[in-house]
C-alpha cells in the first residue's frame, strides 16, 4: 500500500496555508484581533487517492477548500498543483487550473441554480471545456448524466423536481463536466437521507476508479472518512493536529483530540454500550485562542507547559504526524 512519495505522484500540495479574518472594533474600526480560520495547514494529495479532512464544525475545513479553489483569497501559504504554484496566479492565468479542481458541495438544494435546468447547469461546464458544437455537447451531457446514474430525460428539468440524492448526483455531474483530476468533496453526504448516503459514496468510489480522480474528502463523520480515505488529517481550530494513514490513525491515534473523536463515534457495529459517567464538563469557546496548543482547555492532559510552547508537527512514526509535545515522549 505504502509507496514512496514521488513528486510526480502528488497532485496537490498545500503548504502553510493561512487565512485570518479581522475582528474590527471601536471608533475607527481598528483591527483588534484575528479569527484564525486557517492557521498554517499543510498536506498533500496523491494521484488517485483520497485525503480525508476531519474535524468539528467551525474548525476551518470548508475554508481550506475555498482557499484551494481560490474562491477566497489566502493570506499566506503556497498551493502547488502538480508542478505549478497556483497561489499567486491571476484570474486569467488560473483558468486552465480551475478546470482541474472541482468541488462537490454539502447542501444539494443550494448548489444548483434553481432557475436553470439540469442540462443548462452541466452544459455550462462543457462549454468552458471548449466543446462548441451543440450536438457534441448533448452527447457529452448524456454521457455525464448516465455516469452519475441519472436518466437522460432529466436534462430539461429544474432542480426542484429532484430529491436530495438526485441533486447531489447532478452536482457531481456538473463538477465532472470539465474533466477535473481533483475533486474536493465538502461533506457531500451529511445532508442526505441515511438510505441515500451509501448510493453517493458508491458513486464517488466508482467514479474515482473510472476516471482516476483524486479526492479531498471533507467530513465530520469518521465512519465515512475511515471507509473512503487513504490518508486522514484531523483538523482542530484551524490547525491539523494529526495526520496519518487511515489504518494508523484508527489503530493508534496519538493526539488527545483524535482520541476523543474516535471514542465519540457512534458506531452501530460496536454494540457495546458505553458506561454512564457523570455529565462531562462542557467547554466554552473563546474567540481568540491562547498561546501554545489550541486544544488547551478541552484537553484531558492539560498542563501549564501546553500554554507556553509553540508546537511543532512532529513525525512520531513513519508518515504519522502529531501536533502535541507529549506524544514523542510517550512513544519513545
Amino acid at each position, binding site marked *: 500500500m505504502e509507496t514512496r512519495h514521488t513528486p510526480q505522484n502528488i497532485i496537490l500540495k498545500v503548504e502553510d496555508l493561512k487565512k485570518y479574518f479581522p475582528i474590527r472594533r471601536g471608533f475607527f474600526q481598528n483591527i483588534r484581533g484575528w479569527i484564525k480560520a486557517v492557521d498554517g495547514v499543510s498536506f498533500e494529495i496523491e494521484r488517485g487517492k483520497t485525503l480525508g479532512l476531519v474535524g468539528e464544525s467551525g474548525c476551518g475545513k470548508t475554508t481550506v477548500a*475555498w482557499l484551494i*479553489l481560490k*474562491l477566497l483569497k489566502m493570506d499566506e501559504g503556497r498551493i502547488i498543483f502538480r508542478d505549478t504554484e497556483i497561489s499567486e496566479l491571476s484570474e486569467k492565468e*488560473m*483558468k486552465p487550473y*480551475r*478546470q482541474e*479542481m*472541482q*468541488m462537490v*458541495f*454539502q*447542501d444539494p*438544494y*443550494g*448548489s*444548483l*441554480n*434553481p*432557475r*436553470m435546468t439540469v442540462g443548462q*447547469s452541466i452544459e*455550462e*461546464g462543457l462549454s*468552458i471545456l471548449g466543446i462548441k458544437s451543440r450536438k457534441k455537447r448533448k452527447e457529452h451531457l448524456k454521457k455525464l*448524466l*448516465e455516469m452519475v*446514474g*441519472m*436518466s*437522460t*430525460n*432529466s436534462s430539461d*428539468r*429544474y432542480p*426542484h*423536481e*429532484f*430529491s*436530495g*440524492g*438526485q441533486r447531489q*448526483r447532478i*452536482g457531481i455531474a*456538473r*463538477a465532472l*463536466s*470539465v474533466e477535473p483530476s481533483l475533486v474536493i468533496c465538502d461533506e457531500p453526504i451529511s445532508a442526505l437521507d441515511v438510505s441515500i448516503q451509501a448510493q453517493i459514496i458508491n458513486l464517488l468510489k466508482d467514479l474515482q476508479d473510472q476516471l482516476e480522480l483524486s479526492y479531498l474528502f471533507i467530513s465530520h463523520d469518521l465512519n465515512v472518512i475511515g471507509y473512503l480515505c487513504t490518508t486522514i488529517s484531523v483538523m482542530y481550530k484551524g490547525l491539523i493536529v494529526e495526520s496519518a494513514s487511515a489504518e494508523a490513525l484508527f489503530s493508534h491515534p496519538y493526539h488527545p483530540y483524535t482520541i476523543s473523536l474516535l471514542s465519540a463515534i457512534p458506531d452501530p457495529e460496536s454494540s457495546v454500550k458505553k458506561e454512564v459517567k457523570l455529565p462531562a464538563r462542557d467547554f466554552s469557546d473563546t474567540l481568540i485562542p491562547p498561546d501554545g496548543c489550541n486544544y488547551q482547555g478541552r484537553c484531558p492532559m492539560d498542563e501549564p507547559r501546553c500554554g507556553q510552547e509553540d508546537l511543532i508537527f512532529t513525525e512520531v512514526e513513519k508518515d504519522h504526524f502529531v501536533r502535541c509535545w507529549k506524544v514523542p515522549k510517550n512513544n519513545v
Partner: protein
Amino acid sequence: MKNSAQKEFKEDFQLEEPLAPKKTRFQEFWLIFRQNRLAIIGFFIFVLFFLSAIVGLVLTSGQDPLFDPARIRLQEKLLPPLAKPNLDSLAPEDVPAIGFYLMGTDDLGRDVFARMLQGAWVSLTVGFVAVGISVLIGIFLGGIAGYFGQHYMRINHIVLASLFIFGVGLIAVQSPHLGAACLVLGFLLICYQALTKRKPRKKSMPSWTRFLFKNAISVDTLIMRVVDIMLCFPSFFLILTVVALLPASIYNIMIVIGLTSWMGTTRFVRAEFLSLREQDFVAAVRALGVSNYRIIFRHMMPNAIAPVLVSATIGIATAILTEAGLSFLGFGVPPPHATWGNILSDGKRFIFDAPWLTFIPGIVILIVVLSFNLFGEGLRDVMNPKLRERH
C-alpha cells in the same frame, strides 16, 4: 443474504428519474397563482387597464380623434353620466361618438370619458417609465454593491473623480479658470498613473504617492452612503420641488419620480446579491471558471429579479398615485392635456353640484392602483420559492 441482495440490486440497476411529472414553468406559476382569487381579479383589471390605455391613446390622439378630450361645448357643461347631448344646440361634429356622455361632462362641457381615456395612457406611461428608470438604476447600483462590494476605491480614484466633477461643475457655475485648472490637474494625474503602472512594483515611488494608492472606501460603503443621502430627502416634497422648478412636462415627471425612488430596489438587490454570493451554486460556477459577467447576468440576476418584479408592480401603483397627487396639486402635465389627477382637481370645485367629476377619476385610480397591488401580492406568492419547492 447481503450478497444476494447486492446482486439483485446490480441486476435491476436503473437510472434515477425525476420525481415529479413534467410541468412547464408557466403551469407551475398558474397552479399557485390561481389559488389567490384577489390576485386573479387584480390581474384581469391590470390587463383591462393596459388595453384601454392603448385603445384610449389611439382613439383620443391624432388630428380628428374619435373621442376628442379637448373639445369644449360650453352649452353642455356639467352633464351627469349617461346624459344624452342636446342635439339641437350642438354642431354635428361635437356630438360624442357613442351618442351620449358615458361619464358626463365637466365644467367646460368636455367629455369626461374621452378625458379619462386620455388620462389612462398618461397614468400607464408614468407608472411604467418611472418604475423602469428606478428599477434599472436600482439593479445596476445594487448589483455592483452586492457583487463588487468588497472592492475598494483607492484614494487616487476618488481624487480623480472629484477633480473632474468639480472641474465641470465650476465651469458650469461661471468660474472657468478654477474649473479648467481642476480638469488639467485631473488629466495630469491620469498621465502619472499610466506612467507608474508600467513600472513593475510600487516600491520605487516616493512615499507621498503611495498614499494615493491606499484603499479609501469600499464600493459597497460608497453606494450605500449615496442611498442614505437620497433617503434623507422627503420624497414627495423633493419630487414636488423639482417638478415645480422644471418646465411642466409629462416626461420630467416620469424621470423625477424614477430618479427619486430607486433606493429601495438598490438595497433589495444588494441584499439579494450578498446572500446569493454565499450560495453554493455561485461558488460552483466560480470554481468552473465562469466569467463575472456571466455569473452576474446568467446566475445571479434571474434569482434576484423575481422579488424586484414584485416590488416594481407595487411601485407602478405608487407612481400612479404620486403622479395623480402632483396633477392634483396643479404641477406636472400642462393643462389642456387630461390626467386623472387634474380631472379630479378641476372637479373638486363642483363637488356638490357634479360629484361625478370627483368620483369617477377617484374610483378609477383606486381600482387601478388596487389591481396593481393585488397582482403584485399574487406574484409574490408565485415567486416565493418555498411554495414551489417540494421539500
